[in-house]
């Protein structure tokens, strides 16, 4: 199990590739972000994003979460997320994109208010198959250290 001590500043892990299907994009948008540009190619073409339907930005956040849960969080003593400093949606997610996520540790420090835990700033960048950067996210997580007793 990974603990706070295992997270050092620098490149941490590259996750994926993971295929995002058209059906998945439409299913997420139907439930949480039913704007026409996320549901329909023609509406997507006419939108500011152009080029056919695009995935919801919140879907990109959720996909980044899932890749990190599978990639390392479920093998760690994570205590949960504290927040997100910033998200930049840089290019649209498209149907059948194969995405990768490059995870970097920007900062790792011990928590003053919760002894035995640490606060980690993760900066992750999502790319498509042609290495176009789709999203940048800086998230803050709380992680138990080895001596944490809970």
């Amino acid at each position: 199990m990974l603990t706070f001590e295992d997270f050092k500043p620098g490149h941490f892990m590259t996750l994926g590739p993971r295929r995002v299907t058209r059906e998945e994009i439409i299913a997420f948008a139907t439930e949480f972000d039913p704007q026409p540009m996320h549901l329909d190619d023609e509406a997507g073409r006419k939108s500011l994003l152009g080029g056919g339907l695009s995935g919801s930005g919140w879907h990109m956040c959720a996909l980044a979460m899932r890749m990190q849960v599978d990639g390392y969080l479920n093998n760690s003593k994570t205590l949960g997320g504290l927040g997100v400093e910033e998200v930049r949606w840089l290019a649209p997610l498209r149907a059948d994109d194969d995405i990768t996520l490059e995870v970097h540790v920007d900062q790792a420090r011990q928590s003053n208010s919760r002894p035995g835990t640490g606060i980690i700033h993760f900066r992750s960048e999502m790319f498509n198959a042609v290495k176009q950067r789709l999203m940048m996210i800086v998230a803050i997580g709380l992680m138990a250290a080895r001596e944490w007793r809970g």
Partner: protein
Amino acid sequence: MRYFEDVIIGARRELGSYTFTPERIKAFATRYDPQAFHLDEEAGRKSLFGGLAASGWHTAAAWMRTAVDRGAGGRSARQADGDEALAGGPSPGFKNLRWPKPVLAGDTITFFTEVKSKRASITRPQWGLIFVLNTGENQRGELVFSFDGSAFVARRPVAASS
């Protein structure tokens, strides 16, 4: 349709509510955030959350749904309460997203949006950018969610006469 020119600084709108049933919490977590405290009541109780807790991204997605239903994406021509839909476009991103308290099974969260500032887009003359504070409160009025959002909004077409 409401355009960039119609957006009033300081206006705060209630977007709507979303109830986090155990079924909805687990369905979202199964797909996007399968950590034990989002999937299992007992694991949730033992965690810092103190109960089956919604994924923070589920809370964010529910905010988006209420915003779209209130016309953020220009989907509905006119809302039930008489508000006109906003000629909204995509968002370049957000800052300072916080989950100050957990959202637990059974909680009903009411979401709000407040316009803080706006400016014309330099690169896209047909669009402006608005900056908004978006929040969510539980049934006890406690803040559980907030972020500083931004979005493109279309400028009023010059030639439109209808």
